[in-house]
């Protein structure tokens, strides 16, 4: 299968003000399908913006190749690339009306006025801003500006839309609403989106695939489920969602399950496939994977936080070691100081080979 966008071994090094070298892109390989929603996720400074800017043409690569629909991208200036961007700051033209902002790509391409106006009206309609064309960007709310930026970037029907943390300036409710709308819009347009965020929740809800980045390289690429359930390493596990990490030594293998212990003596059950006694691995369990019951790891609740329907507990294992984070769905009656047992289904445990 050929992809819309193929990036091979992309490298970009910056000279820091102190004179050092900083590999903002350190050998990036990435394929994006023709109508895929791909999210770049990683901590601030990991190179997400640099990668987007390399695709849109505002940053050059030191080495590596980049093709779009099989054609080389690297030699094209930004204005010749069939790629558009929704900028983090929106970058709306303050001296133009909303309609002229939205129609800008058509205006510079020489599209006639009548056709332009029709397409602008349609694009504004699509983002829920019908009839706002005569306003200035300064007369709009943050959410509305965001929609103008979106309408402006899709009007020329790019094959790939780049979005650099477009929702980060919006409040929580609006952000969740926009997440859904963006997803719907992407389906309707049938084009590829590369969406940048440092918010893992956002990445999990919106993406077909997530690219987890860290200091210039890709740690893991996968569907939200793969990334969440089967993180490749500690970094990914810790970055995506709440995680409990247990460095354990395999004690014995018993059919389908293996028994393992932490240095402090907390006992865990893992899938036995590939495990050998004496082996040191890291067991990963999400907070929702524990059941509070009569058996399991004994511990004491040190803190209980209500999150609406869920109860979020911090449990100190009796044996010692770091606190375990647990989400209890039934929610009833676990106050601070309560003695509990944390049971878990061995099949839910994800094992990292390295301890």
């Amino acid at each position, binding site marked *: 299968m050929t992809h819309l966008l193929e990036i091979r071994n992309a490298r970009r090094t910056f000279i820091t003000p102190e004179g050092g070298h900083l590999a903002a892109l350190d050998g990036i390989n990435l394929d994006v399908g023709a109508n895929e929603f791909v999210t770049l996720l990683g901590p601030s400074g990991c190179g997400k913006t640099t990668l987007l800017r390399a695709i849109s043409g505002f940053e050059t690569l030191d080495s590596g190749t980049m093709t779009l629909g099989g054609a080389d991208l690297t030699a094209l200036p930004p204005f010749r690339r069939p790629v*558009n*961007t929704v900028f983090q700051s929106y970058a709306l033209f303050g001296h133009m009306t909303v309609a002229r902002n939205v129609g800008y790509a058509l*205006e510079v391409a020489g599209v006639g006025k009548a056709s332009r106006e029709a397409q602008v009206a349609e694009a504004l309609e699509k983002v829920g801003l019908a009839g706002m064309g005569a306003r200035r960007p300064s007369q709009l709310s943050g959410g509305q500006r965001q929609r103008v930026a979106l309408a402006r970037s899709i009007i020329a029907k790019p094959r790939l839309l780049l979005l650099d943390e477009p929702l980060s300036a919006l409040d929580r409710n609006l952000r969740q609403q926009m997440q859904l709308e963006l997803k719907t819009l992407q389906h309707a347009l049938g084009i590829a989106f590369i969406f940048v965020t440092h918010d893992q929740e956002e990445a999990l809800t919106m993406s077909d695939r997530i690219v987890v980045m860290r200091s210039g390289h890709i740690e893991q690429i996968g569907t939200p489920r793969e990334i969440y359930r089967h993180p490749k390493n500690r970094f990914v596990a810790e970055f995506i969602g709440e995680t409990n990490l247990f460095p354990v030594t395999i004690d014995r293998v018993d059919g389908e399950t293996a028994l393992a212990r932490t240095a402090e003596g907390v006992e865990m059950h893992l899938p036995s496939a590939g495990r050998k006694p004496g082996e040191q691995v890291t067991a990963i369990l999400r907070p929702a994977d524990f059941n509070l019951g009569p058996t399991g790891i004994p511990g004491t609740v040190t803190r209980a936080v209500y999150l609406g329907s869920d109860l979020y507990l911090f449990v100190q294992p009796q044996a010692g070691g770091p606190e375990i984070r647990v989400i209890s769905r039934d929610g009833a009656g676990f106050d601070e100081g309560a003695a509990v047992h944390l049971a878990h289904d061995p099949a839910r445990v994800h094992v990292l080979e390295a301890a």
Partner: protein
Amino acid sequence: MAMRRQSVVLGMLLTPVTLFLGVFFLLPLCIIAVFSFLSPGLYGGVEWSFYHWNYGRIFGWADGIIEIYEPIYLQILFRSLSFAALTVGLTLILCYPVAFWVSRLSERWRLVFMFLITLPFFSSLIVRLYAWLLILKPSGLLNTVLLSIGAISEPLEILYTPTAVVLGMVYVMVPFMFLPLYSAVDNLDRAQIEASLDLGANRLQTFLKVVLPQTLPGIMGGAVIVFIPSVGNFVVPDVLGGAKGLMIGNLVEQQFLSSRNWPFGSALSMIIMAVVLTVLLISASRARKAGGHA
């Protein structure tokens, strides 16, 4: 209620400013306006009798003689306006690209450049203009260099020509054009330039549709700041201009200092002021229209 108190407080705060402007600006202006309708005194000063042909003389009819029409003062006024316009145009062409270049320099070099551009303010204008005289005169630096490299075979006659005057004015006015331009260029939103390129506009389209409109306030500001003192300038033509470089400011100077015709000088001043005000009003209304609600 609160509004009224606020405006009273505001009024009190503004009193010193009002007084200052009244004493040092409005009062002299009124004096000039009144003088322009009086007759000249024998040894300078004014005779307190009404006389309106000061203006007639500017427009070409000297001392009420309708038969003879000689608009020499109007010609000088137009020359001054065109010199000033030329100065605005040349300083703009010179400073606009430099402003972009400077805004891209590192912090340190930017400071060095800003210091250099304000350096002339620390020395006397007259001294600096005499330096130009030494450069431009037939046996001066420019001609010596050009002759010695064989670019010309005879010394260029630049000194005491309109060219020298415009050159001198451009030199004097460059900092006044540069500073507002630089501030506009420095405030440009780079993201908007990238957005324009991203949306398929080439560099020229981006310049015309985004960069130019956004720096227009700076251009207008610089143009006004350069135009106004240029129209009435008399120091530069005094030092570098000959008879053909005479400007309206020189006329005013002459009327007060050598010809001792204060009323005529006052009338000339009023005309300059009227022209300058017109230009200001036009550019202000243009700016309001262009700026819109931004």
